[in-house]
Structure formats: structure tokens, C-alpha cells
């Protein structure tokens, strides 16, 4: 036991003495969450629009007022004719132009329909789609609330994330990414470093057992990963107001499980990689890119073509993100996430078995 403690102490010294490691462990998670939370936002706030009102009656004025007071849009200019639309886009001033047809309110009263055109700058298709949807929503709510009845209007409500705030989506994803990075990349690098410097041989010749060496390598990172998980949750809660509706204990246990998964993956990488560089690139390309692209963190899995949807099933973070979202945002308990949890456990068993096999072959 003394041996094991001495080993863990040594690992902590390695971590604390290397400022790059410290940077990755403690600064990067915070920076990432702030970037994803503040800068890369998928919500709409004060988007510049222009109004081309050919009717100028009380209905169009009221609609314009509704849009501008919604907080989603701010008016940049009142245009007077169509030829001004394109220059407004080209100047990068506005993202959308709202065109009311002439005699808008009269048409509305006479025929029950009036036309409004939403011209969007679709060079950013996502933003364009969102802007048009938001504007559409405002018109819809006007028609339903006013006396003008136009049949049943669908009312869209965004469950679990009413404001469609991007940060709700980011927190589980960042958590998966950081835990993966800290656990898998850092352990694989630190184990391959011992191999590269030849110290692994010295350690294996010493009375330390291989299992003690591996556990000793991994222990500090389990701790770091949990600290990171807690600090991400805390930042999410206090800075961005992302709630944890479910059991925080369950959430942390799931984080621990995912950390163990990532660590076993890191150990597996270290049995394959010859040196630190290779280990880092393997972690980067084999782990980080799939996490970012295929886990549903940024791009919804449902919108992917079928082959990628199938592929996404073997990306462990996908399941972890589902678990975290269920617990954090929906308040679901273990009865809702047991399937995903079992899948994660399955991955752990798979990776540990593979690493043990590889490790034995190497020792031969």
C-alpha cells in the first residue's frame, strides 16, 4: 500500500510540475465552457433587421412594434423600396428584411390573408432559418391573439429549454469532451511518457505490480476529472443558470463511470502508441473529433445520414450526453438512463479486456 501511495504522490508531482498539464487540466475546461456559453451561441438576441413597409397602416406598425420589442430583433433601417434590400445585406448590416405588401390591413380584413415576405441572408443558413422561424412565431401569435381568426394555429413550445438557449446543450457536451480529454488523453500521454523515457521498464522491474502502476497512473486523473465535472456544473449553474433537476449524486456517479470509460480507453491507446506524440494524435483524432462531430454535441444525431447515425452508436460520449441531459435538464432518475448506463459499462469492460490483452502481449 505504501508503494501505491508513493506512486500516486509521484504522479501528482508530475502533474503539478508541468504547467502545460495544469493548463489543460484546470484552465482549459473553464475557457471552453465560457467560449461555448458566451461566444458560440445558437440563440437569437438583437439580430439586426430592416423593415420595408409598403402599407404603413396600424397593423403593420403593430407587427413591427411586436417584433422589435420581442428582444430577438433590433431595427437597423426602414427601407423605402426593394432595390435597397441587397445593399443592406451586402453591407453586413442586416440579417433579415421584413417586407409588408401594400394595403396589408385591408387585405387582412377583406380576405383573411395578407402577405409578408421574410428575406433572409442565408449565407448563414442556420441563423436564417432561426430568424425566419422566430419572426413567423411572432406573426402567428398576433393572428391568434387578434380577432382575425385563421383556423387553428400551431403553438410551438420548446420543452426542456424554453428559451432555446445554446448553453443548455453545450454543458453536457463540454462535460463529455473535458472528461474525455482529461482522462483519456492525459493518461495515455502520461503512460506513454514512462514508456518513452524508459522509466516504465524500471517500474516494472521494481516490486510494484503492473496493476499498481496502472491504477497509480489513473488515480490522480480520476480525481482531476471529477473536480472538472463539478466545476463545469458549478459554472453552468451560477454563470449560465443551467439547472440540475435530477439527482446530483447520480449525475456524479455517471460522470465517474464515464471517466473510468475514458481512462480505460486512454490505457488502451497507451498500449498501442509508441510515444507521446502518437498518443496525443490518437487521442485527438480518435477521440476528440468523434466526440465533437458524432456525439450529438454540436450536430443533432437525428439529422445525420443513416451510416453516420449507426456509427454514432459506437461513440461512447453520445450515450453519456444523453444521460447527462436526461438527469440535468429533465430530472430523470436511474430508471430513465439504465440502458445508456449499461452501454457505458459495456464499453468499459470491452476496453479493459482489450488493454489487458495488449499489455500481456507486450510483456512477453
Amino acid at each position, binding site marked *: 500500500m*505504501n*508503494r501505491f*501511495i*508513493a*506512486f500516486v*504522490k*509521484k504522479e501528482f*508531482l*508530475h502533474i503539478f*510540475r*508541468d504547467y502545460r498539464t495544469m493548463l489543460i487540466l484546470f484552465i482549459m475546461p473553464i475557457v471552453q465552457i465560457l467560449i461555448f456559453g458566451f461566444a458560440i451561441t445558437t440563440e437569437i438576441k438583437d439580430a439586426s433587421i430592416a423593415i420595408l413597409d409598403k402599407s404603413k397602416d396600424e397593423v403593420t406598425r403593430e407587427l413591427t412594434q411586436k417584433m422589435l420589442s420581442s428582444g430577438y430583433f433590433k431595427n437597423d433601417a426602414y427601407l423605402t423600396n426593394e432595390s435597397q434590400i441587397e445593399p443592406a445585406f451586402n453591407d453586413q448590416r442586416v440579417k433579415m428584411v421584413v417586407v409588408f405588401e401594400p394595403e396589408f390591413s385591408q387585405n387582412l380584413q377583406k380576405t383573411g390573408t395578407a402577405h409578408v415576405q421574410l428575406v433572409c441572408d442565408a449565407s448563414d443558413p442556420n441563423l436564417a432559418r432561426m430568424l425566419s422561424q422566430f419572426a413567423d412565431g411572432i406573426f402567428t401569435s398576433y393572428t391568434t391573439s387578434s380577432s382575425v381568426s385563421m383556423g387553428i394555429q400551431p403553438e410551438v413550445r420548446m420543452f426542456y429549454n424554453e428559451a432555446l438557449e445554446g448553453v443548455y446543450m453545450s454543458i453536457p457536451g463540454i462535460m463529455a469532451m473535458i472528461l474525455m480529454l482529461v482522462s483519456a488523453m492525459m493518461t495515455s500521454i502520461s503512460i506513454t511518457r514512462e514508456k518513452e*523515457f*524508459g*522509466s516504465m*521498464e*524500471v*517500474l*516494472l*522491474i*521494481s*516490486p*510494484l*505490480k503492473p496493476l499498481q502502476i496502472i491504477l497509480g497512473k489513473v488515480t490522480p486523473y480520476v480525481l482531476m476529472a471529477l473536480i472538472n465535472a463539478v466545476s463545469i456544473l458549478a459554472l453552468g449553474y451560477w454563470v449560465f443558470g443551467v439547472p440540475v433537476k435530477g439527482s446530483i449524486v447520480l449525475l456524479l456517479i455517471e460522470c465517474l463511470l464515464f471517466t473510468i470509460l475514458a481512462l480505460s480507453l486512454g490505457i488502451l491507446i497507451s498500449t498501442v502508441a509508441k510515444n507521446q506524440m502518437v498518443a496525443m494524435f490518437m487521442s485527438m483524432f480518435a477521440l476528440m473529433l468523434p466526440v465533437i462531430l458524432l456525439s450529438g454535441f454540436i450536430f443533432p444525431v437525428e439529422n445525420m445520414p443513416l451510416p453516420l447515425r449507426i456509427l454514432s452508436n459506437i461513440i461512447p460520449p453520445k450515450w453519456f450526453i444523453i444521460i447527462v441531459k436526461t438527469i440535468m435538464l429533465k430530472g430523470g432518475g436511474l430508471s430513465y438512463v439504465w440502458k445508456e448506463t449499461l452501454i457505458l459499462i459495456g464499453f468499459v469492460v470491452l476496453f479493459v479486456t482489450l488493454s489487458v490483452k495488449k499489455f500481456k502481449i507486450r*510483456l*512477453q
Partner: protein
Amino acid sequence: MEKKKVITVENLVKKFGNFTANDNLNFHVDQGEIFGFLGANGAGKTTAMRILCGLSAPTSGKVDVAGFDVSHQSEEVKKRIGYMSQKFSLFEDLSVWENMRFFATVYGLSAKVFKERGEQLLHKLNLFEERKRLVSTLSLGWKQKLAFSVAILHQPSIVFLDEPTGGVDPITRRQFWEMIYEAADNGITVFVTTHYMDEAEYCDRVTIMVDGRIDALGTPSELKKQFNAASMNDVFLALAR
């Protein structure tokens, strides 16, 4: 006086698939002896040394180290040996004292015994003032001398040195060998591989491995006589060719 044998190797064979790395090795090493283990790169030295250290198991044959069978009692063997290699000596980002404490604890020294022996060692090496310095700031020569001292801090019955003086200047090599002699005088068996033939002359006995076999075994003067050579260098060249 009959000397105690600390290493006995009988009919050691190690195969990797079809490749035979160690082909029927037979030798023994006496306690307190400085045993030189020579051979060209790829001759099978490292494989044999790994087996002696309990890192890998022999395909067949019997290997006893420090009174224990390496195939079945490698844990006992590991407690009784020290190991140092040229490739890695000490952890660079740990201080002198932290390195010493780590290896001492791993080899089962109590805190009290370690403090006593550690301080004594540092005073002897004139490194006491530098004990808080990171090992990365020491020169290679100092690192190797310190690494050797750390490898024998737990007073093993055998210390394995894998090309310990590679890249070290002649004066430091000299000092290093003085330390080896001192350890041997204290009853520690020294098992050393080297590519420096002048160092081979310092050994009590020398083996030279060629293509997985031991082609020569004896004291340096015996070998020189046997191969009618003026120096160990000529002996080595006669064999390796």
C-alpha cells in the same frame, strides 16, 4: 573458499515465434562478483537481462536469481535486485530527494531507514546541498552516479546495470567504476552490460554473446589468452565477426 552463487542460468532458451533470442545459455554469477555481459547490438543481451530481472519468462530452462526462480517467484526476485539503465536514470521533474524517496518506498525501505541512508548517501556524493534541485538540472554524469546510488539504496543482492556509462565523459566513467567496485566490496553482485571494452577489462568475469549464444566466458585475461588477443577489444572483434 566456496563462493555463493547468486545467479544460476541452466539451459535458458527464449523464443519469440520462430526467432530464438537466447539459445541455450548456461552460466552462473558469484556473490560480490562484477560480471560483464557483452555482445553486439541484437545479440540477445537485453532479452537475457529482462529474464533475469523477472520481466519476461524463459521459454525453457531454469533461471535462479538471488535464490528464487524467476519464472515462478519473480515478485521475490524483484525485491532483491536493483536496476539501472542508461536510457532512464531518474525522473527529471522530481527533485533529487523526491526521486530517492520514491524508489526507497517502492523497494520497501521504512521512512526512518531511508532518511538515515539517504542523507548519508547525499553527504558522500556531496549532493546534500542540491537535494531539492530538480534532477533535470543535474549533469548527465551526476545523474548516472545518483541513479546508481539509488539503485543500491535498498542494498539488493544484485544490481543490474544496462549500459550505465553510455555518453558519460571518461573522468565520470572512472568515478562510476570506483562506485561499482565499492558496491562489490560490500557484497553486492554487479551485473553490467557495456559497449566500452576498457570497462570489460575492469570486470571480474566477462561473457560475450553472439547470435543468442554465449561464445566466450571467463576472466578478461583468460579470454585474451584464449583468443590470442592483446585487448578485450580484439577479443570482441574476433568473436563478433
